[in-house]
């Protein structure tokens, strides 16, 4: 049997393989992209949620500036303090300190109660808000169609009844919900503040009371008792977060808000669940 043909074939393939291999090796060297191993390391340690809460386009972008030393690991709002410590250790940089934020939906009124028209359009807050200023009487309150909940990468917002509520333990304060809300009901507040005013309407108290019994009437009781911890804009009182005001439980009890706007995050969540339960009965 003539084996030469097999031999030729094997030789040809072998030589071809070596030649191509050399070419690939040359091109790999020529066109190699230099990557910083620190960037890869940082990217591996980052949560990978790509939420944009740090202000960058995503985790990869953040890892780049992190490795370059432009920002500190604490700028990532998602990572826990252990994760931040791990990143700072791995990159050999200072962890830094940034105030943690969280989102609060400053409204506790169910849209079903304050409706001005029968809305049957696209189930999206932005779209609904464009139809004659929204289907509810209040032009400042939560529409409850869940645009923020869909935007949240961490599933921290729940629509209870027809109003959005933030779950504190899941919220990292990335701010995506606040940017998505067409009415600016969602505010980013310091994570360690416990009590908030759950109303967003600067309208006159009397006007508000026509359709919403849950809104702030601007009675200034809180401002009188706690001074600069609250500030009034229009007929709406707000906790003065900018000056680092933290309202304590005792203060809240002494104020005893007449409309019940001043609530802790837990109280608000509980009230929302109780309301839904009550409606079912």
């Amino acid at each position: 049997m003539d084996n030469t043909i097999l031999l030729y074939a094997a030789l040809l393939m072998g030589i071809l393989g070596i030649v191509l291999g050399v070419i690939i090796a040359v091109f790999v060297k020529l066109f190699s992209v230099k990557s910083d191993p620190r960037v890869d390391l940082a990217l591996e340690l980052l949560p990978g949620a790509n939420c944009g809460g740090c202000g960058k386009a995503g985790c990869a972008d953040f890892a780049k500036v992190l490795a370059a030393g432009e920002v500190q690991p604490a700028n990532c709002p998602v990572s826990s303090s252990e994760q931040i410590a791990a990143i700072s250790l791995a990159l050999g940089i200072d962890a830094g300190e940034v105030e943690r934020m969280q989102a609060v939906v400053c409204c506790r009124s169910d849209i079903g109660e304050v409706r001005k028209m029968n809305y049957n359009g696209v189930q999206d807050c932005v779209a609904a808000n464009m139809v004659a200023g929204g289907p509810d009487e209040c032009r400042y309150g939560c529409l409850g169609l869940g645009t923020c909940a869909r935007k949240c990468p961490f599933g921290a917002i729940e629509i209870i009844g027809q109003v959005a509520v933030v779950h504190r333990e899941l919220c990292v304060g990335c701010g995506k919900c606040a940017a998505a809300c067409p009415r600016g009901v969602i505010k980013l507040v310091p994570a360690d503040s416990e009590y908030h005013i759950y109303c967003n309407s600067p309208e006159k108290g009397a006007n508000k009371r026509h359709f919403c019994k849950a809104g702030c009437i601007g009675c200034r009781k809180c401002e009188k008792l706690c001074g600069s911890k609250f500030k009034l804009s229009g007929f709406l009182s707000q906790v003065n977060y900018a000056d680092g005001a933290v309202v304590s439980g005792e203060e809240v009890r002494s104020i005893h808000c007449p409309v019940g706007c001043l609530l802790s995050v837990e109280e608000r969540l509980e009230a929302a669940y109780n309301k839904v339960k009550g409606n079912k009965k």
Partner: protein
Amino acid sequence: MTFSGGIHPVGDGKELSCHQAVRTAPLLEKYFVLLAENAGKPPVPVVKKGDKVKKYQLIARADGFVSANLHAPTSGEVGGIVEVPGPMGVPAAAVEIIADGEDAGEPPFEPLLNWESIDPEILKQRVIDAGLVGMGGASFPSHVKLSPPPGKEIDTLILNGAECEPYLTADHRLMFEKPEKVARGAAIFGRILGVRRPVIGVEINKGDAIEALERFEDRFGISVVPLLVRYPQGSEKQLINAVTKRAVRSGGLPMDAGCVVQNVGTAAALSDAVMKGIPLVERIVTVTGDVVFSPGNWKLKLGTPAIEAVKLAGGVTEEPGKLIFGGPMMGFAQKSFEVPVAKNTSGILLLPTGVSVNYEASGCIRCGRCVQGCPMNLMPCLLSTAIEADRFDLAYQNHVMDCMECGSCAYVCPDHRPLVQNIRRAKAELRK
């Protein structure tokens, strides 16, 4: 002549009011003249509470170039700058005028009877002084369209007498009853722009109006063009296409195709401003609908609340389901009967409860009817699905910004998908 795409709404309801002559409404006690009448910046009020005003007196001055003057519709006392339910569903500022019952006032401008030989700039100034805006619906200040930037050659002026919206007959009655005014207005606009033969486009379902206008063709050097009945013929770009066979480029203005389009109502108002020296303080409004006792056309002063207009038409025969300002296709549903008539209110439409049905939309079945119906040659089905998936970039690539929200796609969609609302959402998102 007509354009490609579009629809023809069945049962257009025009027969309810198209044979009703225009009647002048009796004087009311109070008028609420909306400040934000025009597209662009609202004018600044120049009167305050307690001021006595004469009819035709200036009550708010234009603020900037894209803005229009506002004049008192009757004589009386200013009750203040108040907040009233606005036509866009949110409260709007208005000048309250408590009528003294005399309805007295001198025309504030000098009549320009020799307009055929007068400097076009003076005529243009008259357009600004009289506070003219597009009375077809968009209420865009008219003088803006009359000031083409250098380099833009305008060779065609089209007067929009299409009135393609179902139910509305205000322009129809105007053209039939006052063809001289419309034709003269067209000629004055033509003189301002330096266009030799202005064209008036009228749909052929208004045969009597076409005949009436044709009598003035030679006297004012205009020509009347009959158009096939098709919605949205009254949209600028479609009208230009129907009359001149030109297309306005994507994202462009009518000026880019050498055209300017003005509404016939605006032309009639211009004729009054030039010949009589009076500003725009009243307009013809069709008060109609299947539940209105006696539908008709009324000459209403600006600031007349909708409820008063409905009372003129004899009230309603049954509980209305929907109140719409404008036509049923592009008009705005109102929640209050207190909304006052503005310069762009062509109709007050009351529909029975049965017609506003709630539909449950499921998925697009890609039948392509919306693509056939779109007068802008877009693909609403594709846009809508992209927008529902938050792919605004894809919608932008497919020219979502060219959509004028005429509603033809949503009208023909067998699944009743909220196509226009989705598109509106994307346009708002992309304008950010």
